[in-house]
Each structure stands twice: as C-alpha cells, then as structure tokens.
C-alpha cells in the first residue's frame, strides 16, 4: 500500500474540503439556471383547511389551471397557526410563493409588498358581485384593491342537540337564546356533565369567540377613528357575564388551542361552542355516529345586538413574484363560479363567498344543519371592527389582547377594572396611542 505523508494528507484533505464547500454552490447555481430556462412555476400558499376534503380539490384545480396554461402550478399547505410567520418570512426575505393567502388585516400590513389587484377585482365583481361590505373594509387599502377577497368562514355556535333536548331545548330555542339565557342553560348542562365551552386562551378561536360577546354588550376596542374605547361600562358588563359563565365551563378553556373546542364536541362531552362547521364536517367525513346530534345556531344576543366574528381569506400577489400576470390569471380561475361551487361542496359549506352571486349556491339550503351558517342572521364583523383596518387591529388580534383581558378577570388574577385597564394599555401600544 502506498504510504501517504502527513503533508500529502493535508493537501488532499484541503482539496477535498474545498470541493465539498464549492461543489454544492456550483451545482446550486447550475440548477437555478436550468430552472430559469424552463417553463415558469406558479406557486401558491394556502392553509391546511380544517375540512380536509378541501385540500385535494384545491390541488386538482391549481394543477388543472396549470395544464390549460402549459405551466407548472403548485399549492403548498401550511397549518393556519403558522401562516402569519410564513408570510412574514417571505415578505422579509423577498422570496417564496407567487400567491399568498392573507388573513383579516394582512392586506393593510403588507400593502407595500403586494401587487394591486384592481383589474382582477373589477373583473370578478362585474361577473359575480357585488361584494359584501366586509371585503372593501379589509382589502381596499389606500384607494386600491391590494388583495382579492376570496372566502371567509364565520363562528356561529355548534351544539349537541341530544344534550339540549334533555333539558327541554329544541334547536330553534337554542337559536333564540340570549347570553343570560345561555348561562342558565349552561348550569343544567354542566350538572349533566356536558358543559358549554368557549376558548379563553391564546388562540385565534378565543378571539373569534369572545369579540362577539364584547360587541353584543356594546363594548368596543376602538372607535371608527381608532381611538381606544375599551374602558366602558359595557366592557365591564361583558366581563362580569363571563365570570358567571366561566365556572360552568371546563377549566381547560384557559389553555385551549384551536383544536380544543373541536375535541370537546367530538369527544361527546361538550354541548355548545362557537365554531365554524368544521366540527360537524369532520364527524360527517369520518362517519362518526355523533354527526347526527350536531347542529348550528346563531351566537346568543346581548343587550346591544347579536354579532358573529369571521375570519377571512384574501389572495395577494407579491411584488417580487416573477409570474404576476399568470398569478392573476390563477386567482381569476379559482374565483370563477364553476370552481367556486366545487370549493363550497368540497369544504362542506365551510367556505362562504364575499361575492354575493356566488352565495346563490344551493349547498347551504340543501343541508339543514347549515341553515343558520349561511346566510348569517347576526351582524358579521371582524375583530378590530369598527376601527380602521391595519396594524393596530392585527396586533391586538395576534397578541390575543381581548382573550387575555377576559382570562385575567375570570381567573381572579385581576379585578374587572384592572383587566380593562391592562387591555387599554395594550391597545394603546398596538394602535400607537401611548
């Protein structure tokens, strides 16, 4: 065997290390040039839908559009909770997907990074419009449509009718309940071992469950000008109410994530919770026997009205995208009625349209369990209403300021007035009014 001296070994090792370092870089560069020379790939990011049958349909629709256009097209799915960070990372690094899903106030947050969509929105509104008022509030920023409002899902209440019947309530009776009426029934249901539950934790379902309570008592986080108005008798009344309801709920509502109330209902333990129809949809898709017991009712009404919170999904296109026109075409395709009708069906009615003529779909009428879901009886708003769309509302929503206010009060960590003062301070910081 040939003897290798120490010096030769060092030389060989150095050469090998150099090749190992430079090789991948050279190959990566070569790969990039090969990709650049081929057909464009249009990419899209979408949340992993809570109704699992929606995802494969969207994949098929995107691929079908790609085939028609002779380009590659792909949709990537990410969990809903991870979407904000993913979008932020793409905006910061200026690389990523061509089309992104934008949540509630994201269009205002990323205005400077997104291609205006006035032409797409005008086309689609002419064909299937007009839009529901919420669409303009969220995506029309600085005199331009920054994103296309695709669909939303809202938070009525899911009930287990079997338990409610035992205490003498039919679905129509539950649908007519006030918050006070709910508390009375919740005592009986809790005694039966089938509590009601609304998340009072750091999760988006908590925002969507608790804002309607605040609104229906007349409380608001901010007014139309963005001035902080949380410190009011109405807010205090809503907290005092929650103090009555909290002992009747499972204490784990303080730590629920977005699946917490789904588990409560699907396990057969829970009797009432604010949620879109995904709980029923999962039971339906998995042929669970409990499916027949589920129904949906409007949110309870308070002294100042009846409200329902909604989460929204708009489609935006990054300015750094190299396929802007193709991406716009894909948005047009996904939002046209033939595709939209399939999407409603695949999501089991979960997706609600912003465009009014798309809401003509008979799906919601055909399924009795969805009769209170679409069209909603309650006033439909987004957390942050009635203030200006933008960073303040987004920060308050993402940092769970309102759920934390309720949590601090109901656990006795703070008094009602201290919790409101705390929330006021957080709102001032978020809206830059400090």
């Amino acid at each position, binding site marked *: 065997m040939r003897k290798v001296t120490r010096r030769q070994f*060092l*030389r060989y*090792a*150095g050469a090998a*290390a*150099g090749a190992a*370092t430079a090789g991948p870089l050279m190959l990566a560069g070569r790969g990039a040039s090969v990709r650049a020379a081929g057909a464009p790939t249009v990419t899209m990011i979408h949340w992993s839908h809570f109704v699992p049958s929606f995802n494969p349909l969207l994949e098929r629709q995107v691929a079908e559009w790609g085939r028609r256009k002779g380009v590659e097209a792909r949709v990537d799915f990410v969990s809903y*909770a991870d979407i*904000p*960070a993913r979008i*932020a*990372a793409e*905006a*910061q690094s200026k690389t990523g997907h061509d089309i992104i899903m934008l949540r509630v106030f994201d269009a205002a*947050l*990323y205005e*400077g*990074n997104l291609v205006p969509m006035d032409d797409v929105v005008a086309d689609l509104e002419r064909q299937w419009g007009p839009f529901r008022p919420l669409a303009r509030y969220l995506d029309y920023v600085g005199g331009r449509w920054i994103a296309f409002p695709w669909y939303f899902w809202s938070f009525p209440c899911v009930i287990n009718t079997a338990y409610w019947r035992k205490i003498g309530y039919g679905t129509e009776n539950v649908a007519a309940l006030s918050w006070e009426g709910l508390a009375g029934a919740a005592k009986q249901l809790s005694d039966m071992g089938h509590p009601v539950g609304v998340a009072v*934790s*750091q*999760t988006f379902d908590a925002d969507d469950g608790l804002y309607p309570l605040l609104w229906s008592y007349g409380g608001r986080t901010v007014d139309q000008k963005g001035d902080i108005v949380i410190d009011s008798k109405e807010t205090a009344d809503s907290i005092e109410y929650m103090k009555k309801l909290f002992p009747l709920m*499972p*204490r*784990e*509502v*303080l*730590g*629920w*994530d977005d699946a*917490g109330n789904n*588990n*409560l209902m699907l*396990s057969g*333990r829970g009797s009432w919770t604010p949620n879109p129809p995904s709980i029923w949809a999962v039971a339906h898709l998995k042929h669970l026997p409990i499916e027949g017991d589920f129904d949906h009712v409007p949110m309870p009404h308070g002294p100042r009205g009846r409200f329902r919170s909604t989460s929204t999904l708009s489609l935006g296109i990054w300015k750094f995208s190299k396929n802007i026109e193709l991406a716009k075409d894909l948005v047009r395709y996904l939002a046209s009625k033939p595709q939209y009708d399939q999407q409603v069906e695949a999501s089991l009615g979960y997706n609600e349209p912003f465009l009014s003529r798309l809401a003509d779909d008979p799906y919601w009428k055909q399924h009795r369990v969805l009769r209170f879901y679409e069209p909603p009886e309650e006033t439909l708003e987004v957390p942050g209403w009635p203030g200006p769309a933008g*960073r303040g509302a*987004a*920060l308050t929503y*993402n*940092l769970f300021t309102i759920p*934390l206010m309720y*949590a*601090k009060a109901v*656990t006795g*960590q703070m008094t009602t007035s201290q919790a409101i003062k*705390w929330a006021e301070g957080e709102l001032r*910081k978020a809206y830059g009014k400090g």
Partner: protein
Amino acid sequence: MTVRAGALDTAAPRVPAVGRRRSAEARLGYLMVAPAVLLLILLIAYPFLMSLYMSLTDEYVGTPGRFIGLGNFVYLLHDDVFRQTAINSVLYTVVAVGVKTVLGIVLALLLYALPWGSRLFRGVILLPWVIPTALSTLAWWWMYTPPYSVVNWMLMRLGVISQPILWLSDPAWARIGIIVVNVWRGLPFYAITFLAGLVAIPRELFEAAETDGAGPLVQFRAIILPLLRPILSIVVMYSTVFTIADFEIVFILTRGGPMNMTHLFSTLAFQVGLVSTFIGRGAAITLFIFPVLAVASFFILRLVRAGEEYA
C-alpha cells in the same frame, strides 16, 4: 544616515528551511480553517449583526425601519408581557437544568453500577434525545391534553390524583408540564456524558478509598464529584444555552399560554417579530438572551477553573 533598501535586504538574516516549511504550513492551516470561519461568518456573525441592527430600528416585516436607538429595549423593560417572559425563561432554565443535573448524575451512577445489560440500557435511554423534538413534543401534547390525557388517566388509576390535572391550562401546571418535557428530552445527554466521565476515573482511586474505609457517600463527595466537575460544568453551560433558547417545546405545547405564563424569550420573539410583524422589537427580545447567558457562562467557567485547580 541613509540606508539603501538593497543594503537592508542583504543584511536580513536568511530564513532557514525549517522556518520556511513552518510558514507554508501556517498558510495551509489558515486555508484549512477558512471554510469553517466563512461558515461561521455567514451563519452566525451575519444574522447576529443583522438582528443587532434591526433591534435598533422600528422595522416591521417588509417595510424599512427608522433608527430608534435603544427604544425597543426601553419599551421591553417596561412591558408586562416581556417582564413575565424574562421571569419564565430564568425559572424554566434554572429548574430544568438543575433537575437534569441531579437526575443525570443519578442515572449515570446507576448505569455505571449495572452488573449486566449496560450497553442495552445506554442505547434505550438515548431514545428521547434522538427522536426529533417536534415529534416527541406532539406526543406529549397528546398525553397532556384533556379529554384524552393518558398521563391523567394513569395517575387517576394509580390513585395519585382524584381530579384531572390541567397540564396546559393552569399556569403552574403548564410550567411544570413544559419543564417535564425538557427534562425528559435532555436527561439522556446528561447521563451519557456523566457516565463517560465516571468511566474515565481510575478504579484504583475507588479501591484505595475502600481500603481506607470510605463508604459510597464519601467516595461520591471526595472522588466522583471533584473529578466530574469540569465535565459537569461544561454540560451545564452547554445545556443552559440550549434550554434558555428553547422554542419547540413551548411552541407546540402552550404557545406561551395560559396568560403568557410559559412564554420564553424565543417564543415571545417569534410572536412579536413574525406573527405580529414587529421584527425590530422581536430582534430586541432575542438579544436579551445574551446578557443572561454571559452571566451564566461567567459563573460556570469559574466553576470549571475551580475544578481544574482541585483536580
């Protein structure tokens, strides 16, 4: 007096052959470490300097920020949530590292004393450390979450508790819950490292101690602990760095809740910097880890030196 350059050249001593070889080797040495230095600059120095810069601005994701000096740091020092996070981080790190150290030594001693099957047990206890953290933490989430919590089911069956523990919903239990997962995951590393240190201690020392009539406790105090001290200190320092910067366990189990009682620096930075897009403030939160680590490292390294002197 003027001296010509040529005169200086001739006056210079000749570099002997050995010196030239050494100089060539030195150049080769620099060349060899260059890729590693380059990687360090790219992967550590650049992000660090970027986050330092961002922490001094009011930058939001995707929009250029203005220089605001120490504004973010001053804001954070007056922010309730950040102060709570700082307390959480220190508590989490001190308790988790402390428990891992004690249990690690106990486990190492047990493995050292095993009469048979030592290799098998060493392999088995490494499993929690080898499984990807995200995966194992998801399993813990399932074990903690009502109504399916198998931990509660087991404790109730054993008669330890009569009511289910709210592992992720009660502030105190949520803190305990995340520390348990951290200890479960980190313990194998401690035990195996300590075991390596134990094996390296000459057996003659134990034999001599036994001859002198020293019992197990005296042997532990007079032989094992002093000789393990350098390894112990390094492991504690290494673990402190990783524990205080922990992210996955809290992110998957509690996302900082309930009521911000389990937020660590990294999870709060993620929530503020990326989810809420205030990346300047998020960067400032991460930089607060450095002074905490600097103080911890100072004391631990002092302990190492003390151990070296003793040894």
